[in-house]
């Protein structure tokens, strides 16, 4: 785990304050999403990434606005971190007409093409080859855009992972494979079903790639290591794979209390919670407590407002049901 330490400059500081704001917002959004779930307003499932915000925030900060994010079912943070407003995301979780996809996708499929969020994928591994395709199109059109695919530690054992990694390496595609290693799959520890200790990094060499591990609870470290990968990708040097060590504070999905995890493990990782750690770092770097409180209050207000706006959304009807199966906007398969 490497993170270059440089004395912060004022522009550094602005960047870092923004990173704090982003992480804090992701956290507050998801806490609210959980409440809404418990209230019965989020009807399907939802997978929170509370504890992993440093990754979403750190990577997004390293992206160009025309770069592409490919997320998993655990994609709230990655979606919001690209600048998607909270209201349509809350509304999507609640299945409302003002949802990001008008309720048709739900929590596991958040997509905002406008913000470069090219979908959240709920079948393990699928989006890795799909991200390769976006990268291929950038390469073909010479746009220097880069695709980032996020995935979990447990997802490294599925076939699509292997195919995508080899394919990207051979075609030298501008794609970054980002593994968020939170140690657990749903209820099984990944190390129990994986042949190597670092499920992504220990496999990089199988694709001729450098093995990269980063502290996933340190947004600065994530930002740096990812920025370097973007630079390589834009320079035509091909893909990178990054493995970030992190932890989810809650259960896998919905109301899972995550009881299968040893108390000490959770306790240890709670001491590494990226948000208080980053807050302390900012205070030490000279940011004032007041400034941070102001940010926090702004975000809290944003979450409240977005919740209200989302709740005000309508219930989708038959027009939406039969909309957009096809490019002509309809669902007709016959004449």
């Amino acid at each position, binding site marked *: 785990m490497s993170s270059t330490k440089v004395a912060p400059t004022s522009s550094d500081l602005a960047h870092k304050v923004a990173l704090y704001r982003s992480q804090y917002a992701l956290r507050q959004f998801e806490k609210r999403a959980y409440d809404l779930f418990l209230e019965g307003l989020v009807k399907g499932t939802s997978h929170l990434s509370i504890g992993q915000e440093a990754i979403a925030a750190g990577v997004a900060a390293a992206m160009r606005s025309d770069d592409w994010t490919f997320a998993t079912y655990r994609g709230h943070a990655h979606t919001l971190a690209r600048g998607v407003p909270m209201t349509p995301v809350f509304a999507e979780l609640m299945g409302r007409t003002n949802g990001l996809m008008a309720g048709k996708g739900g929590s596991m*499929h958040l997509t905002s093409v406008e913000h470069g969020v090219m979908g959240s994928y709920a079948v393990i591994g699928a989006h890795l080859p799909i991200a390769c395709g976006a990268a291929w199109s950038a390469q073909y059109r010479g746009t220097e855009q880069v695709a980032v695919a996020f995935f979990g530690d447990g997802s490294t054992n599925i076939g699509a992972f292997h195919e995508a990694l080899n394919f990207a390496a051979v075609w030298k595609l501008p794609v970054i494979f980002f593994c968020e290693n939170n140690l657990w799959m749903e209820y099984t520890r990944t190390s129990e079903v994986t042949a190597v200790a670092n499920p992504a990094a220990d496999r990089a060499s199988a694709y001729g790639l450098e093995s990269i591990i980063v502290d996933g609870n340190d947004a600065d470290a994530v930002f740096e290591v990812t920025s370097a990968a973007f630079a390589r990708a834009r320079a035509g040097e091909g893909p990178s794979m990054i493995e970030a060590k992190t932890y989810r504070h809650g259960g896998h999905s919905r109301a899972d209390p995550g009881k299968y995890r040893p108390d000490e493990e959770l306790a240890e990782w709670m001491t590494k919670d990226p948000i208080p750690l980053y807050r302390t770092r900012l205070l030490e770097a000279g940011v004032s407590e007041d400034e941070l409180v102001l940010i926090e209050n702004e975000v809290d207000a944003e979450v409240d407002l977005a919740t209200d706006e989302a709740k005000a959304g309508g219930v989708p009807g038959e027009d939406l049901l039969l909309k957009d199966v096809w490019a002509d906007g309809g669902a007709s398969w016959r004449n």
Partner: protein
Amino acid sequence: MAELTFRESIARGIAQEMRRDESVVFLGEDIGAAGGVFKGTVGLIEEFGGVRVRDTPISEQAILGAAMGAAMTGLRPIAEIMFSDFFAVCWDIVANEIAKSRYMTNGQMTFPLVIRSGNGGGLRFGAQHSQSVENWAMMVPGLKVVVPSNAVDVIGLMAASIRDNDPVIFLEAKALYSSKMDVPDGEIVDTLGTAKVLREGSNATLVALGAMVPRALEAATELAASGIDCTVVDVRSLVPLDTATILREVSATGRLFTVEENPRLCGWGAEVASIVADEIFYDLDGPIVRITTPHIPLPAADALEDMAIPSVERIVTTVHKSMNS
């Protein structure tokens, strides 16, 4: 006699067979200590241990490949594919390998295995976790396909599937997992390829499967109130298909309505309709009508999902309209 949920019946059915036969082993993701994501396998690892009940990596091709290789060498594996949508990541092992290898080897190999999976919608999980894939399996020669609609049938059909010497795709309607029923004590073993007539009527025959069975029954009750008396057949097993029962019951009323959760095109209902339109054409008194989910991916929002999957109301309206036209 005890009241069991559909999900509890799954563990009971598997346990019944694992007790009886050492060669029955069980593998899948999170099936062990976690008791399955739908809590359908609670207690099995405690009773049978980690050698017979084994957690796997997220590697569906490996899971089903392992089941196939074990079956051809003398075991009787049960494999779980968590959501039936994920058959798509291991379809080669199912459709090209397991289904075909007995035939290709001229009977040198036998594949006594069961692949069970949570199937269908109703839980607001969206298009990639809600599909009804019974027709994916039905269209592939060499697969048996079983879809129970209640807790008792779960046990009996699970036992029959495990004892069967052919590969069985066992699809559990997720929407029924929490449904409850009184279940007799002792061993329960049912028979594959037998449909059940749940209600006898004289005006029309509703043929339904899985989660659509309780809806068809409820619709029949409503329809009876307005003078349309329906037979309701629970298909239970698509392959082998109990065409004898279906043909008899459709002949008796002269009208067939299928109630299907799968998207419209090439569903099991199309097969049943085609058999009827061929073999008892002259017994029919009117059009064959399929009541299905429209041919769309399933939406996530509760309001939309409820519109998509055939509801009691839609069944009632459709039958009414068709019988009165």
